[in-house]
């Protein structure tokens, strides 16, 4: 019943050409329903951890188990990406369709949904995130905060069972941060947030851990 959503066993990972590995014998697990904050100095491997889970980077050693299944090859990760959503640090990397509606429908269409259903899902997601009336807005002309919320909508439209957020508050004003907190609180899925903002984490997660080269050390708040 309480099988971990994510398990990382003895992961070793180094970027090519880097003097030191990011992870060495790294172990980590995330239990269902958890809301976890990941903190640590720049370059400690927070983003790397998220990218390893999504299969955007591959460990040099160790195993990754997601939803009880070991994932190794690109094909395994294709399934993972249907269930795990990743919100990128930079919204400009995430939004690439000309209009908001098309961008949000992109994921559902990739999941094999017919266009009419994809549009329906996109509209519902926008409604939920307070993005009503944004359908035909051009993605690259949105403000920074709007881009972030639309990016989140593109990920949530795929109805993930787990959400990974990479520094979601970077460059956002207080009002948009509050909206983000409100949205995250209304989610009934597990999520992990990488952030440098303790205040934001206090509002959104119950546990935080410090990412090290070998493990994630829980911090009691």
């Amino acid at each position, binding site marked *: 019943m309480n099988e971990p959503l994510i398990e990382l066993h003895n992961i070793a990972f180094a970027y090519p050409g880097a003097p030191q590995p990011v992870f060495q014998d790294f172990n980590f697990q995330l239990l269902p329903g958890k809301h976890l904050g990941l903190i640590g100095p720049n370059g400690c491997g927070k983003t790397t951890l998220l990218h390893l889970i999504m299969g*955007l980077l591959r460990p040099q050693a160790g195993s990754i188990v997601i939803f009880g299944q070991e994932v190794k090859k690109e094909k395994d990760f294709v399934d993972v*990406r*249907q269930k795990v959503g990743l919100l990128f640090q930079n919204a400009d990397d995430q939004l690439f369709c000309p209009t908001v*509606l098309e961008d949000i429908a992109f994921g559902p269409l990739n999941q094999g949904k017919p*266009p009419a259903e994809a549009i329906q899902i996109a509209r519902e997601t926008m409604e939920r995130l307070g993005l009503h009336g944004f359908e035909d807005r051009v993605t690259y002309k949105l403000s920074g905060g709007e881009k972030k919320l639309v990016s989140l909508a593109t*990920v949530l439209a795929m109805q993930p069972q787990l959400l990974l957020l990479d520094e979601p508050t970077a460059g956002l004003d207080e009002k948009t941060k509050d909206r983000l907190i409100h949205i995250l609180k209304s989610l009934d899925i597990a999520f992990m947030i990488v952030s440098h903002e303790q205040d934001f984490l206090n509002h959104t997660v119950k546990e935080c851990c410090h990412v090290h080269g070998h493990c994630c050390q829980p911090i009691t708040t």
Partner: protein
Amino acid sequence: MHRLDPRGKIVVAGLFAVLMAVSKSYVAPLAGLALALICLALARLPLKKVIARLLAVNSFIFFLWFVLPLTYPGDVVWHFGPLSATRQGLVFTGLITLKSNAIIIALIALVATVPIVTLGQAMHDLRLPDKLCHLLLFTYRYLYVFEQEYHRLVQAMKIRGFQPRTDLHTYRSYAYLAAMLLVRSYDRADRVFQAMLCRGFHGVFYSLRTFSWQRRDGIFVMMAMVALAELLYLEWRMPNLL
């Protein structure tokens, strides 16, 4: 004009451009120019914008007038010191000018009136290679981002007192700027692709828009085909000028 199915407009514009490009006489391009102007009038575009676009194209052709008549071999009609212009050269340059303007006006009226996104989808519907359609859509999407990136870099140079001069420092700085833009765009392309993978992308774009072919589209294409056939007939009947 704007409500016509973009697929019909693309096909007509494409055939028209090919026909213009291969014609060797003055008659077909003249008739073509007239047809293109009629389309332009029907499209009711802001005149200022159209003229600006035409000027941009014709500024290239302007330089041809300096080179071609003087270098094309043939009967000399005009001497200017050591230089001499030939009749054939002048005829040829005039033909190029006429053809390019006919093609560009037709494209402005038919293709440029379609939003880029719709254009990409219409091209996809016409079974043009996917790579071409994706290239078009992505170029359009990220042109703006690169422009911003460029301005950010230029500003970063300016606030540290950079002023372009004619010296090595300036050239080196510009080279760095260009290289940095290249590297950054490569990185960004990488990240965009990763983000797409995370959302289940597997090489196929699905389109939300469907086009509907209507009676007016059939009529438009039929009329265009008749006009193109007449141009072809004119071209076939007229002697080669060169």
